[in-house]
C-alpha cells in the first residue's frame, strides 16, 4: 500500500495495527458482555439443577432469551440516587468497577500467533512484557469502584460492604500475587504470551509442576474466588447481613454494571489462571499446522468454562464464611503457604536450569 494517500508503508502498518486492535477490542468487550449475559443464565440453571429444580426455562426455548428479558428489565428500571449520596461518586463508582474488568482481557493470549490466509494473526490485543503486572494493576483499580460505591451511597450497609470488599481484596491479593509469582518464576517472564508458550513447548502446564505448581494453582484459585467477591467469600454483598452490601443503594443500569463487573472479573480470573497454570491453549502446540492452531482459542475457552462452572459449583455448595475466618484463612493459611511455596520453587529454579523441573517425570 506504498504511497496511498501520500503515506508510506510504515505509517500504513501503524494505522492497520490500530484498526485491528480497535476491532479486536470491540469484539472482546462485546464478547465479554455476551458471555456475562449467558453466564447469568448458566449460573441460574446450574444452581437450579444442583437444588433439584429447573431454573429459568420459560422465556424462549430452554429459557435462552432470559438474559435479554433481564437486560430490558434492568435498562428500564428507575435509577435511584439516595438523597444524601454524593451524586458524582455514586455515578462514577459502577464505571470504576466495570471498565477495569473489561480492559484486563486485552493482554490475555487466547491462542498461538498464527497465519490466516498468509497474513499474521494474533489472538490478543496487546503483547506487553509486563502483561501480568498490567492485569493485577488494573484489577486493583476495580476495587475502588466497590469502595467508592459503599462510601458514596451514604448507607451503613453499603459502607460496611465497601469496607469489607477493600479489606478482603487487599488481603487476598497478597496470596494471589505470591501464587502467581510461582508461575512467573517458573516462566522467568511477566509476558503472558511467553508464559503460555513455555508451558506449551515444555508440554507441561505449571499446575502439573508437582508439588509446588499445584499448590500455587490451588491457592491462586481460592484467592481468585475471594478476589471476585464470589460465594463463599461474598462478604462484600452478604445479602443476609448487609442487605446487598456495597450495591444496596444501586438500581437499574448502575446496578447491572456492578453485576457485569463481577461476572467479567470471574472470566478474567479464570483466563489468568488458565494462562498461568493451565498452559493456555496447551496441549495444542504453538507450531502446529494452521487449522490445529485455530483450535487453540477453543481449548482456552473450554478451560475458562471449566473455571466458570467451578465458581457456580462452589456457590451452590458452601455457606458464606464469617469475616474473621475469611481474614484468618487469607493471612494465616494461604499467605504463609504461598510464601514458602514461592521460596522453594525459586530454590528449585535457581538450582536447575530454566525450563527443567526435576520432579516432573
Amino acid at each position: 500500500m506504498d504511497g496511498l494517500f501520500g503515506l508510506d508503508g510504515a505509517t500504513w502498518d501503524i494505522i492497520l495495527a490500530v484498526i485491528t486492535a480497535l476491532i479486536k477490542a470491540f469484539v472482546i468487550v462485546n464478547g465479554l458482555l455476551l458471555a456475562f449475559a449467558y453466564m447469568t443464565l448458566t449460573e441460574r440453571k446450574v444452581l437450579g439443577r444442583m437444588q433439584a429444580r429447573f431454573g429459568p426455562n420459560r422465556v424462549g426455548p430452554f429459557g435462552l432469551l432470559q438474559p435479554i428479558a433481564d437486560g430490558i428489565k434492568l435498562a428500564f428500571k428507575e435509577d435511584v440516587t439516595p438523597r444524601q449520596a454524593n451524586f458524582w461518586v455514586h455515578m462514577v463508582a459502577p464505571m470504576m468497577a466495570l471498565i477495569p474488568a473489561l480492559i484486563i482481557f486485552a493482554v490475555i493470549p487466547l491462542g498461538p500467533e498464527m497465519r490466516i490466509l498468509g497474513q499474521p494473526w494474533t489472538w490478543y490485543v496487546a503483547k506487553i512484557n509486563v502483561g501480568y503486572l498490567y492485569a493485577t494493576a488494573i484489577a486493583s483499580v476495580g476495587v475502588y469502584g466497590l469502595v467508592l460505591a459503599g462510601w458514596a451511597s451514604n448507607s451503613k450497609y453499603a459502607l460496611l460492604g465497601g469496607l469489607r470488599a477493600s479489606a478482603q481484596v487487599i488481603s487476598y491479593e497478597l496470596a494471589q500475587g505470591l501464587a502467581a509469582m510461582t508461575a512467573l518464576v517458573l516462566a522467568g517472564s511477566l509476558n503472558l504470551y511467553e508464559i503460555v508458550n513455555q508451558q506449551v513447548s515444555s508440554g507441561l502446564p505449571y499446575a502439573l509442576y508437582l508439588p509446588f505448581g499445584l499448590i500455587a494453582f490451588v491457592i491462586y484459585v481460592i484467592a481468585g474466588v475471594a478476589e471476585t467477591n464470589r460465594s463463599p467469600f461474598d462478604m462484600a454483598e452478604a445479602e443476609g447481613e448487609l442487605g446487598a452490601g456495597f450495591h444496596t443503594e444501586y438500581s437499574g443500569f448502575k446496578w447491572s454494571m456492578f453485576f457485569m463487573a463481577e461476572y467479567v472479573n470471574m472470566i478474567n480470573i479464570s483466563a489468568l489462571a488458565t494462562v498461568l497454570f493451565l498452559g493456555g491453549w496447551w496441549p495444542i502446540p504453538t507450531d502446529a499446522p494452521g487449522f490445529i492452531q485455530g483450535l487453540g482459542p477453543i481449548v482456552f475457552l473450554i478451560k475458562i468454562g471449566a473455571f466458570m462452572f467451578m465458581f457456580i459449583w462452589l456457590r451452590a455448595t458452601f455457606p458464606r464464611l464469617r469475616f474473621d475466618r475469611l481474614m484468618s484463612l487469607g493471612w494465616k493459611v494461604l499467605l504463609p503457604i504461598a510464601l514458602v511455596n514461592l521460596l522453594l520453587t525459586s530454590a528449585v529454579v535457581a538450582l536447575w536450569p530454566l525450563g527443567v523441573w526435576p520432579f516432573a517425570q
Partner: protein
Amino acid sequence: MAFVEVKSPPPPANALSGAVADVTALARGLGVTLGYMFQKPVTIQYPEERPRISARHRGRHELERHDNGLEKCVGCELCALACPSKAIFVEGAENPPDAPVSIGERYAKTYIVNMIRCIFCGFCVEACPTEALQLKKVFELADYTRESMIYSKETLLAPAPKREATDSWMPG
C-alpha cells in the same frame, strides 16, 4: 431421594489431620451438589404438568345427589353450625311431596359457601349427617371478583355445572 447420613467426625489428632479432614469434608459437600445436578428436578411444571392430588385432599365443595337424582342434603344446617369461619349459609324449606328435591322432609332452599372465608378444614363434611357435602380434589379456585367467590347452590350441586353468575351473599 436419598438423604446423606451425617456422622460427626472424631476430633483430629493434630493440625495436619484436622486440615485433611476439613478438606475431605469440603470435597464431600461438592460431591453432594454435583450428585444433585444429575438427578431429575423435583419441580412440577404446573400448568402443563398436573400435580398428584392426595385422595384426602380438601378442595372445592360439592353437594352430592342420590342415584335417583334427589339431593342428599336435607337442609339441617349442621354444616353451617360446624363452620369455624362462618362461610356456609343454609336456608331450609319443607320438601314439597309432589315434586321432592331431597329424600327427607326438608331440603336446602338456599345453600351458599363463601370461598373467601372458607379455610378448607372439612368440619362441615364431618358434621353432615347424610354425607351430602364433600370436599373434592379441585383446587384451582382463583377468580377475579369477590362476588364470583361466593358459590351458590347451583354451582355446588353435583354434577358440578359450569360456574355462572351467582347469588348475592347473605341477605340482610
